[in-house]
């Protein structure tokens, strides 16, 4: 019985192996002759339009164009990896405000004869400005994106002229209907208010300061506190509220239209004025066709970039892709034609075109990047009423300036060299002593068979795991970006460990974040193990009905991609619309503003992470329980042990060898689990729920790409965990040491 089952399993396994092998190795390497390669981040209609344009270009010019849609989140890292290696695209489409990063990583070349002087008048002036940097044109402008006012034609008779007029509609619209909704927590959306008052986010440094910025924040707070706009509105929430007639007007971009159903009665108008102040002016981003350094040398690539901006292409992109195209000829012709059937769609695009004329192009500099987080922290603080606009903004500016502090001067490499030298020397001494110890040769001889078992694992791990990590660790001795590193020795470490010269437990300091991280790890792992153990043991009970169903349902949290479930959790914790508060309301509890206090925000993060993590621990326990011989437990029962005694004295010790590695590694992973923190609380309130690794990520991605600093964080985290596991190993006694050492 056992044998035949094993035999069948083996056959099935071999069959799977064969199929896998054929697919893995068969057609993967047949490269077509290289034509022009085009990368873009588009989906849906925009992608379909682009494909048509490309097909026409191929037919006219007789050149093969290979297009690749790359998800936005992986776009920059893929460009950055591929272009310097010559595997990148010739032409790529991206937002103009990333130009600073493209230049920094040497991913672009001037666009040259793809946008010659005689073509310039063919594009909207504001879009040409956006792709021009220091007098050089870097892309062919394709389409502009900015926000405008969507208004519900059932609730409003005409687009509101001023914000105040709109806000005054509160109450007149019916119960539970808001006059306005916008993503009030986002600096991108707040910028429209800020610009109305004559303020700016960025002028080469952090510019959201002074009377204009303060008045814009007061206005935003007034909108929320007066009930004119809901708090904490996310993009998904806006869509729901607007689709269900719960809000009269929303501020959003062309992307919202794609999500709204066709029978919803709405129109789009430029943003309203603020009474006695001026018109709200949103940020403008322009999608452009950029040329990589290799692509710029190729005539076909330049021709493709030029063709993407042509008026035929613009027509396709506007009509199929619903883009607000930058090509003026399209608008001139559309003005003449006025197609009746597609009138609403045309009116929508036109409204966005009108809005873009007044918009302010997003700054190109990479120094703009670190503005967002402190600005948003200030906005949220003011909206919650935790600080006055003046204080919040002063703090935000201080945070920005701190992040942008120039790297320390290159020190002498002596301390670093001495440290590394001492480390190497100690290692060498240890090795030599080991080698010269009596009997080493014999031991080595005896070890030979074992090496046959471990060699391939050692090589794989070394090449694909250790090498990339070492590469990361080395960058921690440098400051600046990856492409322009500057040796700073141990300065990054000194900076972090001295809390950047501020009090040791001040906001965002290494030590404070460490405390949060330790609490985060302990709470999570305890709950993971407790729940996993309880469920694993419960599921192992003899004669349990529905066992298979329970098992499958309980691994659901593991099976559904965490990106979407983490955001479902975030939605559930929303103050006004979340399911948790709705649940509390039925129990008669006041709604909780989950992300305004550390304790509740931390709880929300933990609830999500425990949910994500317990199935794994449960499966480990289930696997481990099956390896416990039944007769041992039976013997315990015969000896008169109670269930609890049997569990504690027999089951638990037997589970230990398999459970312990899972617990040790689970702790390590939780320590570095930045996804949940990032997606659920996002560090709110005010960055207090951030853990060490999210700090490292912020340095790498949100703070002017300071990879060296991020790497130093990573090395310190590594050191801490290494120490922790050794201590745990000591405390846990023999077996723990076995597993952890």
């Amino acid at each position, binding site marked *: 019985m056992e044998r035949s089952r094993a035999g069948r399993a083996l056959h099935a396994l071999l069959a*799977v192996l064969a199929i896998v092998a054929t697919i893995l190795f068969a057609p993967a390497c047949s490269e077509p002759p290289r034509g022009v390669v085009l990368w873009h981040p588009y*989906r849906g209609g925009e992608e379909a339009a682009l494909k048509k344009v490309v097909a026409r270009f191929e037919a006219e010019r007789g050149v093969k164009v290979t297009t690749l*849609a790359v*998800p936005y989140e*992986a776009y920059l890292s893929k460009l950055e990896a591929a272009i310097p*290696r010559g*595997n990148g695209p010739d032409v790529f489409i991206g937002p103009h405000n990333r130009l600073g990063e493209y230049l920094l990583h040497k991913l672009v070349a001037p666009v040259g004869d793809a946008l010659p002087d005689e073509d310039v008048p063919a594009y909207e002036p504001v879009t040409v400005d956006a792709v021009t940097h220091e007098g050089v044109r870097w892309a062919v402008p394709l389409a502009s*994106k900015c926000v405008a006012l969507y208004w519900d034609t059932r609730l409003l008779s005409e687009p509101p002229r001023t914000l105040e007029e709109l806000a005054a509609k509160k109450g007149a619209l019916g119960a539970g209907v808001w006059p306005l909704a916008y993503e009030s927590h986002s600096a991108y959306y707040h910028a429209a208010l800020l610009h109305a008052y004559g303020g700016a986010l960025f002028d080469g440094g952090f510019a959201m300061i002074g009377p204009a910025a303060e008045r814009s924040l007061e206005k935003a707070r007034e909108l929320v506190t007066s009930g004119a706009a809901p708090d904490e509105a*996310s993009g*998904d*929430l806006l869509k*729901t509220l607007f689709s*269900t007639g719960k809000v009269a007007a929303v501020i959003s971009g062309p*992307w*919202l239209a794609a999500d709204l*159903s066709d029978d919803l009665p709405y129109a789009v108008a430029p943003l309203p004025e603020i009474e006695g102040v001026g018109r709200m002016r949103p940020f403008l981003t322009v999608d452009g066709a950029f040329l990589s350094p290799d692509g710029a040398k190729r005539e076909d690539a330049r021709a493709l970039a030029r063709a993407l901006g042509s008026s035929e292409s613009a027509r396709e992109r506007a009509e199929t892709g619903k883009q607000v195209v930058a090509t003026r000829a399209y608008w001139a012709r559309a003005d003449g034609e006025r197609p009746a059937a597609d009138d609403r769609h045309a009116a929508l695009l036109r409204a966005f075109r009108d809005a873009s004329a007044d918009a302010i192009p997003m700054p190109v500099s990479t120094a703009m990047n670190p503005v967002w987080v402190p600005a948003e922290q200030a906005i949220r603080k003011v909206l919650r009423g935790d600080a006055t606009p003046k204080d919040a903004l002063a703090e935000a500016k201080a945070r920005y300036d701190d992040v942008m502090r120039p790297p320390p001067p290159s020190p002498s490499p002596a301390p670093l060299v001495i440290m590394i030298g001492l480390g190497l020397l100690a290692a060498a001494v240890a090795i030599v002593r*080991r080698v010269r110890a009596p009997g080493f040769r014999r*031991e080595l001889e005896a*070890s030979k068979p*074992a090496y046959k*078992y471990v060699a*391939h*694992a050692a090589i*794989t791990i070394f*090449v*694909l795991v250790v090498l*990339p*990590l070492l590469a*990361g660790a080395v960058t921690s001795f440098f400051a600046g970006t*990856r492409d322009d590193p500057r040796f700073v020795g141990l300065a990054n470490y000194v900076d972090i460990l001295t809390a950047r010269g501020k009090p040791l437990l001040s906001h965002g300091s290494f030590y404070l974040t460490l405390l949060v991280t330790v609490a985060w790890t302990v709470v999570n792992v305890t709950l993971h193990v407790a729940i996993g153990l309880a469920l694993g043991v419960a599921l192992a009970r003899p004669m349990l009905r529905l066992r298979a169903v329970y098992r*499958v*349902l309980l691994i659901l*949290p593991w*099976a*559904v991609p965490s*990106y979407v*479930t983490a955001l*479902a*959790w975030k939605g*559930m914790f929303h103050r006004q619309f*979340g*399911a948790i508060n709705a649940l509390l309301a039925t129990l008669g509890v006041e709604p909780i503003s989950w992300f305004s206090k550390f304790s509740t925000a931390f709880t929300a993060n933990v609830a999500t992470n425990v949910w994500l993590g317990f199935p794994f621990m449960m499966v480990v326990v289930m*696997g*481990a329980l*099956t*390896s*416990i*011989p039944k007769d041992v437990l*039976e013997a315990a029962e015969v000896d008169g042990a109670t269930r609890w005694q049997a569990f504690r004295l027999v089951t638990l010790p*037997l589970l230990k060898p*398999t459970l312990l*590695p899972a617990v040790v*590694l689970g702790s390590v*992973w939780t*320590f570095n689990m930045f996804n949940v923190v990032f997606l659920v609380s996002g560090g709110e309130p005010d960055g207090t729920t951030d853990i060490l*690794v999210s700090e490292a990520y912020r340095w*790498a991605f949100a703070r002017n790409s300071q*990879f060296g600093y991020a790497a130093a964080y*990573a090395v310190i985290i590594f050191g801490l965990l290494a120490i922790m596991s050794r201590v745990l190993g000591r405390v846990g006694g023999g077996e723990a040491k076995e*597993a952890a050492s």
Partner: protein
Amino acid sequence: MNERKPGLLETILVHTVLVAAVAYALYPVLWVVTLALSKTGGTEARVLPLPRGAEDLTLDNFRLVTGVGDPEKGWLFARQLVNSLVVSCATALTAVAIATPAAYALARFDFVGKRTGLRGMLLTQMFPGVASAVPLYLILDALHLLDTRSGLVLVYAATAVPFAIFQLRGAFLAIPVDLEEAAMVDGATRVQAFLKVALPAARPAIAVTALFAFMSAWNEFILAATLLGRESAFTLPVVLQSYVGEYSTQWGAFAAGAVLVSVPVMALFYVAQRQLLSGLTAGGVKG
């Protein structure tokens, strides 16, 4: 097998605990399902994740993701689904194949460098991989494995191997040595003892390890998007992730895709659990 019949009260208690856990596990997932099926989106102050009404129900999001009605897109989706399955299965197999002998050696043999190796492996898990995509890209480029699914599988498997080794070593340590020794007294070689005695006994742990490796490959998208160069080679998470834009996310489509992506995992687990997790070892150990 067990003589003691559980009392009614205890049975009720156990089921209560399990139902509560299922409710906790299911509740957010039901929100995701509602989101996927809704025209107008998900969040609104409601306690139960039920659709707003029949007129709000739609399969459009599923049609959009799978490319129903657009043969070219549908074909691409099918290819990407196959890619995902192949890459994840291959990752599971590769990781187990690499990890099992190493774990066995680490459990049964004494050799020079064993402690260092174990410690080093644990250490690799402690280093947060902030932006390790670019170094990996360089390494795969040097190995001429860029833009191939085998390269991606190798990377996934390598990341899963340290955990797999720890897990399997624990399992081998829990298996009594006498079985293998008895086999070797009967004339089996060490390799035979490993393959014929220890390996079957460790099957549940191998299953868990394989599932773990499978899952890590099944949901990963950053490396897949970075290391693969053609859309027909992309895995499903990459496709899903492309519904997330800079300014907006198509939550409906994303949720529909997430639901689709999790169905094969659930099916796999359902089919495999009886085989893999129901006391095969008890028989093996008793010999």
